[in-house]
């Protein structure tokens, strides 16, 4: 209970900061939209090809915008040694981890709420009825991304060129999430149901659970860095 309350407190602080400054959110929105345009210009997507490529392209857009958000995740704490102050307070490090995961999750979710419908509009996709399933699967993928991403973001916090380093260490480890999400989305867009991609869905949920637990456990060490 204490953990949840502390998580809420840190998250509230971060959300207020985000809503007042909107640095991360605006850049993520803009970058995501920009990516959709670049994709269209570089692949010249005709409608019959686009539903086949949609899961991959959509996830590339999320991956890139998400990385942008992760790079700024501890941005507020880096200024004026705020991180040290936060660590000095009697705050459970696990709560700090959960709050940061939630923050990045909320940011990415807001971006996805815009990007996914925009994708459907820009590429003339007709499958609007599948929207709930698409969101649900993206949600699970986003959790996995945020969980591992937060650990890696904290891990690279004091490295030189950390914005460049983050995707290098994060993307290879994210491969199960990327593959599983794309496979599930592909199955849903093809047949309208999860069908034979069910093992992928289980893998995705398993990944989320494993790394969420692992994150809470190792964050004590991670943040000590």
């Amino acid at each position, binding site marked *: 209970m204490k953990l949840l309350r502390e998580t809420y407190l840190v998250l509230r602080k971060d959300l207020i900061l985000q809503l007042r400054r909107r640095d991360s959110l605006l850049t993520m929105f803009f970058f995501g939209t920009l990516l959709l345009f670049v994709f269209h210009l570089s692949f010249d997507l005709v409608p019959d090809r686009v539903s086949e490529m949609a899961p991959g392209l959509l996830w590339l857009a999320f991956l890139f915008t998400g990385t942008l958000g992760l790079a700024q995740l501890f941005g507020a704490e880096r200024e004026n040694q705020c991180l040290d102050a936060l660590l000095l307070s009697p705050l459970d490090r696990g709560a700090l981890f959960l709050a940061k995961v939630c923050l990045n999750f909320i940011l990415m979710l807001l971006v996805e709420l815009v990007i996914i419908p925009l994708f459907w509009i820009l590429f003339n996709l007709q499958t609007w009825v599948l929207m709930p399933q698409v969101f649900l699967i993206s949600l699970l993928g986003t959790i996995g991304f945020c969980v591992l991403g937060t650990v890696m973001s904290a*891990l690279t916090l*004091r490295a030189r060129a950390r914005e460049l380093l983050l995707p290098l260490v994060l993307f290879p*480890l994210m491969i199960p999430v990327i*593959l599983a999400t794309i496979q599930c989305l592909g199955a849903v867009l093809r047949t309208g149901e999860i069908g034979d991609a069910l093992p992928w869905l289980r893998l995705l949920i398993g990944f989320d659970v494993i790394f969420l637990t692992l994150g809470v456990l190792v964050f004590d060490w991670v943040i000590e860095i």
Partner: protein
Amino acid sequence: MKTQQPQKSRARFLGALALITIAFGLYWALVQAPRDALQGDVQRIMYLHLPSILTAYLSFFLVFIGSCLYLWKREKRDDNLAHSAAELGVLFTALTIIEGSIWGKPTWGVWWTWDARLTLTAILLLIYSGYLMLRSLIDDEDRAALSAAILGIIGFLDIPLIHMSVYWWRTLHQPPSILRPDKLPWENVHPAMLTALAINFVGFLLLYFYLLSLRLRLGEVRSEIKTRRLNQGAY
């Protein structure tokens, strides 16, 4: 300085032993083992290919062990082990991929194919290259060691999941068609082939531990130089 002498000669002995074993293994692989019925002489790359990847796996396991020990006891020695093993692991994985490419071109007609096993090996290379990058980009040594240890553990735990997903990804798309035909059942393998493989494997293990002992020594010397400089106030 006196204490280093037996250590040095032991390392030399290990190196010489590795050299002899690999030479002997190559003799078996290139002369004694029969030509492969389907692939011809090019198949003989297998005698290096398999030992390299097994050595690389061993190396990544040592990274994991070293990382866990470091988190637990915070001793430089364990971090040195993880760091050294990661470097060697990257080296042997890269070697494996290069050997595989040379084997793949005449056998499959391509240097590279997105087969599950190939993809997984490439991902391993990427993960541990990232590990080495992380280390080199953090200036403070203790911090670098700690972050690397955590990445070493998370990376290792992620491997089964990556393994599973990459295999599913391939099998859901297309059944493995290229790799199967040349995979002979055990009874079809000539005993001389197995002998050659076993000797080479032992040779690679010896070579690995030789290189590891050198690399560990290098790490020790490096930190020793650092502490001496600190003591002299040169920093």
